[in-house]
């Protein structure tokens, strides 16, 4: 039971990862592929953020005090994973933007964004 509930964050990551991966492979519509790619990437962002978090840990600010009790915090979460993922988010946004730009160009050139129809039109040539 603990393997499921205690590690629920990792199960969310795996569920999202598989969903995204499935969409990328199974969908023939290019925009849907990009959406799948996004979900796939976001699952990795969650993986990183979740591994830096410690239960009861707070933001790593030195000499910070708990307002209600006045005690100093003893446990800190790791901020580095969040910082890393900030970079990965930027990369993800750039990838999505480039992918959408390519889809616009494909729509202009082929008049469709369905993979099957694109293949058909290439064969017609």
């Amino acid at each position, binding site marked *: 039971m603990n393997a499921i509930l205690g590690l629920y964050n990792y199960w969310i990551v795996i569920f999202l990862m598989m969903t995204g*991966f499935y969409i*990328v492979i199974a969908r023939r519509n290019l925009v849907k592929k990009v959406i799948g*790619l996004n979900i*796939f990437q976001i699952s990795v962002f969650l993986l990183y953020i979740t591994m830096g978090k410690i239960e009861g840990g707070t933001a790593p600010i030195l000499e910070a005090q708990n307002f209600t009790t006045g005690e100093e915090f003893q446990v800190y979460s790791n901020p580095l994973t969040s910082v890393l993922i900030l*970079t*990965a988010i930027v*990369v993800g946004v750039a*990838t999505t933007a480039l992918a959408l730009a390519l889809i616009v*160009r494909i729509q202009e050139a*082929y008049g469709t964004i369905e993979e099957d129809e694109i293949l058909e039109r290439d064969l017609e040539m």
Partner: protein
Amino acid sequence: MERHLPILPIIVPLMAAPLCLLIRQRTLVFGFALGVCWATFAMVAVLFMHVVYADTGDAASPVATVITYELGGWATPWGIEYRIDTLSVFVLLIVSGIGAVVLSYAPRSISREIHCDQHYLFCSAYLLCLTGLLGITITGDLFNLFVFLEISALSSYSLISLGARQSRKALTAAFQYLVMGTIGATFILIGIGLMYQMTGTLNMADMATRLDTVSGPRTVLVAFAFLSVGICLKVALFPLHAWLPGAYAYAPSVVTAFLAATATKVSVYILLRIIFTIFKPGFAFESLSFDTGLMVLSLVGITVASTVAIFQTNIKRMLAYSSVAQIGYIVLGISFASVTGLTAGIVHVLNHAVIKSGLFLAMGCIALRIGSVELDDLRGVGRRMPVTMFAWVLGGLGLIGVPLTAGFISKWYLIGAALESGCRLVAVLVLLNSLLALVYVWRVVEVAYFQEPPERHSQVTEAPLSMLIPTCVLIGASLFFGLNTSFSVDVARQAAEVLLGVTP
């Protein structure tokens, strides 16, 4: 200035890329980008002398050193470290050298293949791609490597899509590469995350000392699986090569020549770093038998890709399949995990980069004059464009591995490594596959030399000098490395010894 030399090959092209967007004017942009590329090459050459010959100035007895540079002055395990050893400086030299030569060739070829409004964008994306590839090789930090990987990948997607003026298939090829490339990069990202979870560090050398591969949890295994699958996708190792033929066939000639010579080679570099620097061969090869997997995949890949190449009618596509096969040879060399095998793999990184970019540049000359790279349109081209076609044939001989060409040196060491580890069958397979290469090179030679040129090609003349010289430089280099191995093999051997931790 001297102290900051390791970071300059990254900073200079990175800063120059946005400047290209500001300059905009076509000739100025090309002049500027060319200057930047050759300056980068010069800086890398200085680094090369420092690392390989260790400042002794004695070329006869190379002593390996490692140059490290702490970014922003932050101490190593915490800050990002740039770390240049023999292997990285060897790959750096290949990437920056090919980058400079190919860009010198670009202006004429580009003016036919890319709309003139987009030339400054081409230069900008080209410099960014160069930055990314150099960054991957120079950095000693795993997450920094991912960022550079994405910089080079994103710019190469847009470079490939510039081929859309020639054929709209370039757009779908670029999109397919984007999807596959992003999946590969995300797999690598997952692997890096799990590695960070296990070791608490991102510095590769630090990670190697902290990683407990013997009694550590299974997460290490999962991380290795994600990393290796992601990298093999980027390397285009069979059966993960599906993105490569389309991308190389429909990209502009210049882009194909640049990417074919550098992008997959840098991915091979990442594979070497992951296996030999972080996980160590003891874990990857002995306890996981990853070497057997690599050997089988590379041998199947060589055979299948060479066979498919024989049936292609588009020469660029044929050369792309041949690239998949040649990457198989490189990975095969790595899979022996011996000094000779690694030397063969690393030396073939250089030899194949030089040969294949030379071939693609020669193809670009033909595309400029004839406007097509279909086999049927190449009839009699050997008479109309003798120099270009002769260069192509010399490059083709290198692909086959005929003695006196660079390809022969690679195969010689590869077969030597196979016999050394007692795999006679592998040696035989390598030789048989060279015959397949002979078939697809011969098909082109036959059409180009033994068939009458069609009427409409009566006006076709030799390619302009600005394109012919870079092509001949690369093909000449491939012959040079076939005759004089003191540079290529010695440095590759030094790199292999550093990777395996053997002292000569």
